[in-house]
């Protein structure tokens, strides 16, 4: 799974939920082929090269290897204050490695002056799943939610949900009110029945397209009560409209495993009664 090209890895980092699903179950997934030690050491040595192209190539290789033995040299590289391209690449490589030892340096970079760096650092931190550093990671992600840059806030909002930081629910609602639509996704991932009601309170006050991703998360969760799911569907029925019909249709087209008959039938009923768009 880790043998992905660097470019595809970047794309997956940008799409939080899909990436999270792939990563659920912790870092360093099983089945990863062993890294050739000589190649690893050669790449680490190339980090000291005088020309940027060689260093960049070395970072790319280390990201592909995703071996925790590269954490320390990449951290040293970042702490030396490299130029922009190397900074970006090194941060992303640390994310691919997902070694909890890199949390401290990545947290520092979540406070970098350039928003792009902060965003990459948040995305990389989000990939680190280790209970030893969860508190640090959660705090860094919450701080990133307050960032002045909307893209940083967006990735932080998604990452909070990925990390299961339920303590950040109120902060997520505040973020949603302050026009961070990604917060709805994490609310859906983390919230309970009360939070679903609270999110439904935004119907009519916020764009439906911002709220539906949150409802999608609630509906797909196996730990979320069926009655509450039905309640969400009823609230959508009150709104009706082509967007709701399309949302429920797509939901039924790819339902979560174990979706109850009750919820399914209710969704189907609402789809039937909502007229097609003219």
């Amino acid at each position, binding site marked *: 799974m880790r043998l992905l090209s660097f470019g595809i890895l970047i794309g997956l980092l940008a799409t939080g939920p899909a990436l999270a699903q792939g990563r659920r179950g912790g870092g360093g997934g099983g089945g990863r082929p062993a890294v050739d030690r000589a190649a690893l050491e050669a790449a680490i040595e190339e980090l000291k090269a005088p020309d940027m192209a060689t260093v960049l190539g070395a970072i790319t290789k280390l990201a592909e290897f995703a071996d925790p033995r590269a954490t320390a040299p990449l951290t040293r590289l970042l702490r030396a204050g*490299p130029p*922009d391209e190397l900074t970006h690449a090194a941060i992303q490589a640390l994310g691919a490695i997902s070694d909890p030892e890199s949390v401290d340096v990545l*947290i520092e970079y979540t*406070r970098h002056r*350039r928003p792009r760096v902060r965003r990459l650092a948040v995305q990389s931190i989000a990939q680190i799943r280790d209970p030893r550093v969860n508190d640090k990671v959660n705090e860094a992600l919450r701080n990133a939610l307050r960032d002045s840059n909307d893209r940083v806030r967006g990735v932080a909002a998604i990452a909070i949900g990925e990390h299961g930081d339920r303590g950040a629910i109120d902060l997520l609602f505040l973020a949603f009110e*302050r026009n961070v639509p990604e917060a709805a996704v994490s609310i859906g991932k983390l919230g309970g029945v009360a939070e679903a009601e609270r999110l439904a309170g935004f119907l009519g006050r916020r764009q439906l397209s911002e709220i539906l991703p949150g409802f999608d998360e609630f509906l797909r969760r196996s730990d979320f009560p069926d009655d509450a799911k039905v309640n969400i569907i009823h609230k959508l029925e009150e709104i009706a409209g082509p967007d709701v019909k399309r949302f429920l249709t797509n939901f039924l087209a790819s339902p979560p495993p174990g979706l109850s008959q009750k919820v399914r039938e209710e969704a189907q009923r609402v789809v039937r009664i909502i007229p097609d768009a003219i």
Partner: protein
Amino acid sequence: MTRPTVMAWRVAAASATLLAALGCEELFGGVMEPAAFGNLFADNREEDVAKVVARLPAPAPATAPANRLGRPLVAGLRYGTPGVFVFDVSSGTMLWSKEMSVASRPVLTDRAVLVQSGTAVVSLRLEDGSEMWKIETEGMSFFGAAYDEKHVYLTLGVTVSHVGRLLAVNADSGWTSWKIQTTKLFGRPAAAGGLVFVPWERQDISVLDRETQEEIARVRSVDDVYNFVFARPQGVFYGSKGLYRFDAKSFHGTQQGATYYRPPMQGVPGDPELWADAFAEPTGGRNAREKIRFFVAPAFDPSGQSVTLEHDKLFLLYFRFLVAYDAASGAIQWVYRHPDDIEAVSVQSSGVFLVDSPGNLVRVAADTGLPDWRLPIGIDVAAATFDIAGFSPPAQPVGTVETMRVQLLQVILDQDNRLLPFRQYLIAKLAQLPEAEVTRDILDVYAQRTSPQALKDAARAALASRAEGAEHLIGALDTHTDYLMNTQAPPMGVVSQSLVAMQARAAVTGLVAHLLDPETPLEDLQEVAQALVELGDASLISTFESYLTLYHADSAFSQNPNALNVLADGLLKYGGDEERRFLDNLVASTYTLPALKAHIQKRYDEIEQARLAAEEAARLAAEAAAAGTVSAVQEVLPQTLSREQIGQTMTANASLIAPCVQAKMQRSPTLSQVRMVFRLSNAGQASDLSVLPSDDAEFTACLSEALSRIQFPRFLALSQRAQFTIDIATPEPPPGTAPGTPPPGPGTPPTPILPGTPIVPTGPVGPVAPPPPPPGVPGTGTTSVPVAPLPPPPPPPGVPGAGTVPVTPLPPPPPPPGVPGAGTVPVTPVAPPPPPPGVPGAGTVPVTPVAPPPPPPGVPGATGTGAGTPPTPPGTGTPPPPVANPDEYPDVLPPE
């Protein structure tokens, strides 16, 4: 036909021709050939003016209304349904109110009210409003009128085509006794002593004999404009931004030569006139022009040789606010805030009377600014004029006298958008108050979400001039920009500079947090870094190194590396060999930003020059000692320049600096102080100038250029930081000079003061405990507690039973990110103070007149800062020893 008959016909024909030439409108008057106002009349002739003065009545106090009813009256225009009214103030009853169209403000004479209605000027009988007469305006505008016991003198005109008409109309019958029409634009006239004073073209005042219509004197301004003339029992006065008395000196036509008073205030928003503009096109309704102007009343001077003002004050009306200024110093005495727009004001000996839009007549005590009498007129008012001399109802003051700080804040925090220029003006005045809390107030104004950007900019500039309140600036450092909490960090550029000026070393920890905060704007970051270098010590070396390491190759600073340059200077200042090697590595690295490299290399060159200069000086000294003779080069260079030396050099070169400051003052009339911080090389050249206020690139460039031309004395150290402050004060009148005597010169802006008196540094002197070690770089959060709003200030002493009118407290800033569990203290907004209530029955409360605010500290005075510390012992890498004077910081590297 016989010869006599022919003659008779010829005479008759000639008479008819003559009559036709004169016009047939009036049998006993007619349009005069304009001998008056002619171009050939000699102006500014002493003997002519003397004749006029001889005919004027002796000055007298105004003790009674001028109208024939002998009652204090207010005449006005109704708002809503157009019309005119006359209100008897003493009885509190409406004499009459009449519906009619109106196109001008009312003029009260001794027997009538004059208004332009439709195409005529109408005279309405004072007793009952019945029409006495009307004069057709023939398409002209009615600019105003004056009167004496016989006539009413009207001026009409067409502004665009410069046509002016003066009519002398019988006050009772309306017959035109005479009229003059010219191609000059006339303003509202005045009448006294059988003379008619007519301003024209804003340049001249012609004095006509009311019987002969001859022009007997003309005063022409040489260095000013004449926008009004008026006559009172106290005398005849004229002027524009200042006030002249018409007396024997008027022939000079200059401010210097005439009996003249000029208000000392500058930068008053709207640049209002001292009296109503006599040339203003009339309007028949509410007019913003009438809501931004001064109101004064000449005081009675038996000698008739000066211009003094009633209560020794001028009163500025700005929509809903009245501001009292001391006539001599220009200091604000009080600010009165009215709940509604004020439509008219009259200054009387018993106080300041106003009429507001809903039609309330209110008197404000001239010494305290408290309302102490009120009477409803009963109708909405569009405009009004007073004839209430001598009226003095019993006083029943309402409210308590607030401190000047509170009075100013109440206006600054008022959210009426029309008041923005006024609020900006007052925030500069607030900044001049010495109380430390003012610094917090200004920060609160900046932080308030509803503050318009222009007000925030004014707050920034005001903060730059503060010398007190370091503790509030330090407290403000706890606030960081937080998107979710919608908080904004204080203006760090200005705050940093102010902290340096205040030598607030306790601010270092907070400053480090803002250095590390990615939200700190790049343009402010340099000042933050500079403040850390100035206020910090060697314990900040690791912070500087970490920051330079992180960003030395990063594009975040490619456009503006100044902050990095400053930190590099900090390493040179506080560091030793190890830091020198660190900088060597930065220079050697191919990735380091070129501008940073160049800066470090430049510093190295300066070090080398200093070393060579020191060697040369030592060699010369040794030669002189060996020869046992006095060396020709007796001069032993000092280690660094003292603040006195810097001040003396700057003062000696004031002529280079002054034009820049004067140009700045033209753009920013409220400028009160300029702070310059720059680097001096040991060759005596200045560079790297920072200026407060920092928002004017043109000003900074001008000062930089001037500074580059100044040669300072040489010294031994590598370089040093220097600071110089220019205090700009309004010129004090010479001792013993009463207001009204001619000022030293025409109204030129005051010359900036560049004295050499140093300011005694505030803050601790002597060993200072270093701040705690800074956190790592970047992204370290700070722990802090929310700053609760300070309680409203207590009432001033001597005011019994006084409660304060609450100033709306601002919500406390939320904790910066990274502080878990910190909540915000909910703040219930306090409603703005209610409008003044109706006339209370509480009786008077003795009030202590509010003393004018003392001048801000450090005025006049300037700081030239010379800095020097003993160099770090070589090789030890230890921090420099504690310094006796924290200002004495040189930039000296330890010897190799």
